[in-house]
């Protein structure tokens, strides 16, 4: 008697969890990314535009790194990583670990800061 009722409860629980997960996947911002407005501020603070052309960001017309125009649609990061949110955060936090010796410096961003910048880059379509 008790076991079937517990099973049914578990079933409802799973159903509820699944529907919640489905709701989450409809969010416009990919899971795990931060605040795009804060990310834009950090991109200005860190002067990302001294090396990258970034549409919509003041004085972001650098010519060392690639233009970040349409970055959200780019398939690869740094030619090495698939452009997923987690990989983007990894690259932003430790570019020298991903491609040792490349021209992009480690900016010592925190995980939160990197997630915010990643969220901002994901708005560049």
């Amino acid at each position, binding site marked *: 008697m008790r076991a079937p009722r517990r099973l049914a409860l578990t079933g409802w629980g799973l159903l509820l969890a699944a529907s919640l997960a489905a709701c989450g996947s409809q969010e416009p911002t990919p899971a795990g990314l931060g605040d795009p407005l804060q990310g834009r501020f950090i991109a200005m603070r860190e002067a990302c535009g001294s090396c990258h052309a970034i549409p919509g960001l003041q004085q972001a017309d650098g*010519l060392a790194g690639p*233009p970040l125009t349409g970055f959200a649609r780019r398939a690869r990061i*740094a030619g*090495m990583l698939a452009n997923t949110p987690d990989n983007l955060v990894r690259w932003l936090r430790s570019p020298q670990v991903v491609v040792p*010796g*490349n021209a992009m410096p480690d900016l010592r961003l925190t995980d939160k800061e990197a997630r915010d910048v990643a969220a901002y880059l994901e708005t560049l379509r």
Partner: protein
Amino acid sequence: MRPRGLALLAAGVAAAGALAACEPRPQNQAMAVAGGDPDRGAALIGQVGCGACHQIPGVTAAAGEVGPPLTHIAQRTVIAGVLANTPDNLIRWIQTPQAVVPGNAMPDMGLNPQQARDIAAYLGTLQ
């Protein structure tokens, strides 16, 4: 010994990249590639299919979104994040990208030196 050599190499490349980044090419200046034919280069870019991965101004249907856009590549200071953008380095990168950055997404296309030089000559016109 090897790790130290690698670290030194990486530091050297980073320093070269940083120096190159500090000396931007004058605005709107083409990069002359001696002995390269830009017209042949543009035709080769179409044949090889560079546009499947890159946006390349002036090349029909070159609207790829895997690698970076090559807009203004003649003015860029660093190639692939690791080489100063000089004619010789650009030719080297186009001909043997896997030797420059092993495992990166750009394939070796089996170009001969003259073909790589012609493509570099065309990219040198993208100011």
